[in-house]
């Protein structure tokens, strides 16, 4: 709401300076968001919250200033000479549930022309455009008093009738020249034959005031706010009128607004004013609200004296009837937002001053809730990835549906069960993510285009799977991406990328004390079939890691040297569910260990994990630990073979092992493992 100060001063004669006024308005809830100089005047841009339609006018702001400074509001005089006899228009309200009151007057013999300069300037200062004297006056009164009016060309109203009724299904040509389809329950203003206006939203083109208009019928009405809002939304039409009607207008003031407008018209456009036609089927007597003095202070934590409470509500235009423990507040017709005790408490708080309310801390018992371990585990996951060199990204939850095709994701895959936004910002962001991989690839493309050649990124976010319920499944996922161009480095780093990323995952699993995990070949369609693995915990797949499939990488048109791009995604909920909580101490071993190595030459295709498995399965309790310390292919090893060397640590719980005992056991184990794997022991 734009408020020119010279106009405001006409209603309330304040003398405080502009800065003080701005601060005072802001501190009672009318935030001044901007100040502008225009035509030698100062115009305030006041942010009026949706609950205060009464402040969408100069009068409304003046009432607040009046309450603030305790000076009266001056109301402009409107003397009308009703020379035109009774109105020729017969008004009927057919749908009383949508229209509460409809009043109007005719003005016959007007001359359409320009408005006076002072009026044009005020209209412009408020951000509207002057059109002609009659239309300007309806706008002027709208700005001044907050009540929307509509002027019809009386001669175009067929049958000299006005009927307020629902639409049925129809179209109407509105003032802006557009044919508009109407919702069935839209409230219309009809003449004797046809709709002439969308009630509260916009007039019709055929009955609008034009240059040759001589006779006018001026409407001032009150409608059900939610009906106006619905119609305005369906039509996609938001006007100064609909904005005020959908927030609620003053059913009493509409009469004054009508009189104010016709008196201005008679003066500036000439013409004779008729008597008023006023259909007001039901009256809405103001309901008294009981306000308990002690409740006010309990809710606010204050010690506001009773007299101050009464004074505040009276300054705000309410009547107050004092009682011993409570008072009854009767709000004025323009304060439809005040209906309950809490509404009055709010008014008392506003004018007592939020800054005068004490500062205390709540007395609440200590929470008996178990601490949220999940939040701490998430923090641990983040910290683990961060220490492994990964930087956290946060992406929008949206996804381009075409990415699922790019990734060759099967039609029956769970990740195809996406939710679609009805009103996306664009097609690329029209689905909710079911996987974090597309966003991470976007991050890669962006950063590579910015010159980065070393990217280690991770994200923790929800993904959304439509499982047919009212709401989708929201699973927490961990995603990561690794891309590092090999550059000469001072200290040599020879670990292949796959194992760097796998190491980061193992470190995480270790940190979380997830013991029972396995990596096995993955069948994800977007991963390199020979350089990818699924991760399963307790036999259930919870994620994957792997090199992005070369065909997919080729489609990304990355302008960098060919390079493995690794992606990881894990179901974090499943992972965190397998975290082993609680630690139990186990006693330290009391007897010494003996280490023995064994190097095996086996077929290249035999996974190291299979050999480990065999070793672990050997029936003895004396093996404490098995570790792989060497992997070698090449010179001295036959084509198609590889050498793997393990250290076995032997220890007994109850005695010191002897060399000869271990010599014998290790020998048997060597024979066993060569038999199991078809390999030979190297270097014997």
């Amino acid at each position, binding site marked *: 709401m734009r408020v020119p100060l010279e106009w405001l001063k006409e209603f309330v004669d304040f003398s405080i300076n502009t800065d003080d006024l701005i601060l005072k308005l802001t501190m009672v809830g009318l935030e001044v968001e901007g100040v502008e100089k225009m035509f030698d005047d100062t115009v305030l841009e006041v942010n009026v919250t949706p609950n205060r339609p009464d402040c969408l006018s100069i009068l409304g702001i003046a009432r607040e200033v009046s309450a603030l400074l305790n000076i009266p509001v001056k109301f402009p005089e409107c003397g009308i000479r009703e020379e035109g006899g009774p109105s020729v228009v017969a008004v009927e309200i057919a749908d009383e549930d949508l229209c509460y009151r409809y009043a109007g007057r005719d003005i016959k013999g007007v001359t359409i022309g320009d408005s006076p300069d002072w009026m044009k300037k005020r209209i412009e200062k408020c951000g509207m455009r002057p059109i002609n004297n009659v239309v300007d006056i309806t706008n002027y009164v709208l700005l001044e008093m907050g009540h929307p009016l509509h002027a019809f060309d009386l001669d175009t109203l067929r049958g000299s009738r006005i009927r307020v009724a629902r639409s049925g299904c129809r179209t109407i040509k509105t003032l802006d020249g557009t044919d508009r389809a109407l919702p069935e329950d839209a409230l219309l203003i009809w003449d004797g034959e046809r709709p002439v206006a969308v009630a509260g939203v916009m007039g019709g083109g055929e009955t609008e005031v034009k240059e040759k208009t001589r006779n006018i019928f001026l409407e001032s009405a009150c409608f059900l706010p939610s009906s106006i809002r619905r119609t305005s939304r369906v039509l996609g039409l938001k006007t100064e009128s609909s904005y005020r009607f959908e927030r609620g207008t003053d059913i009493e003031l509409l009469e004054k607004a009508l009189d104010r407008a016709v008196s201005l018209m008679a003066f500036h456009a000439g013409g004779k004013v008729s008597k008023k036609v006023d259909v007001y089927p039901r009256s809405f007597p103001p309901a008294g609200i009981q306000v308990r003095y002690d409740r006010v202070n309990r809710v606010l934590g204050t010690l506001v004296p009773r007299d101050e409470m009464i004074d505040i509500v009276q300054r705000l235009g309410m009547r107050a009837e004092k009682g011993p423990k409570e008072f009854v507040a009767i709000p004025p017709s323009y304060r439809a937002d005040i209906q309950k005790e809490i509404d009055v408490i*709010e008014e008392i708080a506003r004018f007592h001053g939020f800054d005068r309310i004490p500062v205390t801390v*709540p007395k*609440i018992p200590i929470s008996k809730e178990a601490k949220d371990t999940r939040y701490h585990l998430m923090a641990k996951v983040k910290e683990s990835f961060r220490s492994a*060199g990964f*930087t956290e*990204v946060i992406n929008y939850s949206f996804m381009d549906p075409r990415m699922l095709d790019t990734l060759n994701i099967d039609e029956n895959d769970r990740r195809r069960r996406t939710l679609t936004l009805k009103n996306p910002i664009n097609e690329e962001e029209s689905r909710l993510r079911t996987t974090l991989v597309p966003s991470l690839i976007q991050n890669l493309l*962006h950063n590579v285009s910015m010159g*980065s050649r070393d990217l280690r990124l991770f994200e923790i976010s929800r993904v959304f799977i439509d499982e047919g319920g009212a709401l989708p499944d*929201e699973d927490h996922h961990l995603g990561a991406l690794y891309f590092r161009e090999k550059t000469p480095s001072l200290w040599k780093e020879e670990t292949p990328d796959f194992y760097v990323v796998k190491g980061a995952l193992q470190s995480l699993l270790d940190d979380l004390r997830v013991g029972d995990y396995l990596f096995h070949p993955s069948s994800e369609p977007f991963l390199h079939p020979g350089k990818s693995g699924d991760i399963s915990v307790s036999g259930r797949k919870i994620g994957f890691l792997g090199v992005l499939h070369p065909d997919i990488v080729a489609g990304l048109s990355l302008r960098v040297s060919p390079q493995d791009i690794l992606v990881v995604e894990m179901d974090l909920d499943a992972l965190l569910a397998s975290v082993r909580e609680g630690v139990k101490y186990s006693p330290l071993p009391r007897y010494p260990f003996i280490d023995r190595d064994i190097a095996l030459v086996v077929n290249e295709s035999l996974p190291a994990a299979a050999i480990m498995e065999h070793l672990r399965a050997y029936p003895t309790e004396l093996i404490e630990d098995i570790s792989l310390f060497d992997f070698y292919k090449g010179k001295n090893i036959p084509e198609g073979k590889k050498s793997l060397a393990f250290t076995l640590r032997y220890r007994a719980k109850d005695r010191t092992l002897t060399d000869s005992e271990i010599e014998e056991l290790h020998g048997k184990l060597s024979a066993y493992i060569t038999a199991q794997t078809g390999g030979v022991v190297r270097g014997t």
Partner: protein
Amino acid sequence: MEDLQEIKKRFVDDLDAAGTSVDLQQLKVKYLGKKGILTAMLKLLSTVPAEERPAYGKLMNELKTFIERESEGKESGIRDAERRSKIASEAIDITLPGKYTKTGRLHPISTVLKEIIDIFGSMGFDTEVGPEVELDYYNFEALNIPKDHPARDMQDTFYISDEVILRTHTSPVQIRTMERKKPPLRFIAPGKVYRCDADVSHTPMFHQVEGLVVDTDISFSDLKGVLEIFVHLMFSKNTPVRFRPSFFPFTEPSAEVDIGCILCGGAGCRVCKGTGWIEVLGAGMVNPRVFEMVGYDPELFTGFAFGMGVERITMLKYSIDDIRMYYENDIRFLRQF
């Protein structure tokens, strides 16, 4: 007799000439070894006349002691020098860079979110969560924002269907938690929220932290206390805090909470639009209608709720001037935090 003087003189010359521990070893062998000069002389003792023998023997012993002492003294000096020179030769260029895996960084939103959660955690707040894809009922209606209410204009909503939306604020977690639990309640609900406007100052997704305190005797003054403590812990003890009336359908009275502009110190700048104040929180006393919706007795219980935008607080904390930076995920940006 003169021989002994001669030997001593030769030994002193030899000792002077010895420069390394090897030289010294040879020197000891030459004089004291089994075939050494002194050993040979000792064998000749029997040829000395009997009356001179004690004196001669004594002189011989003195010479032997002298040689042993002198050569040992020199030897330890040489060893020290040799050890020092060996250590000196082992020096490396310690200015060459060390080898380490550069650790990653957390997203600034994540860091500030954690800070907010920790501050409220220290005040005894629990943490609650709720779905991001939400029913219209929880996001609006139960929060006293009926359909066709102008308050819906305050938030542009992404729709999945007429009844299913992306939550526009974290406030639905209030309702879901109150439906599940009975007072006293004291929790925050952090999370992502969505609004379908994207321009210079808006992103379609951002983060909020909601808070709710409900018990039998909670007042607006408690709201002021809790949020003032929060601002002081989040920014600094000297940050001024201002509460001014506002409107949210689910709280009454409602307040916007401003803090003194931390960039200009209240003098007025671009960030605070010259006012010296920056809006950081929305808050208010829980509207009794909301309590009715969840089946709490509004006569018995009072409470306050608040909500804040994490992006905004992060911007203030790190002087970030473009909200879109958060979601570009440019590594050069992310590595600054």
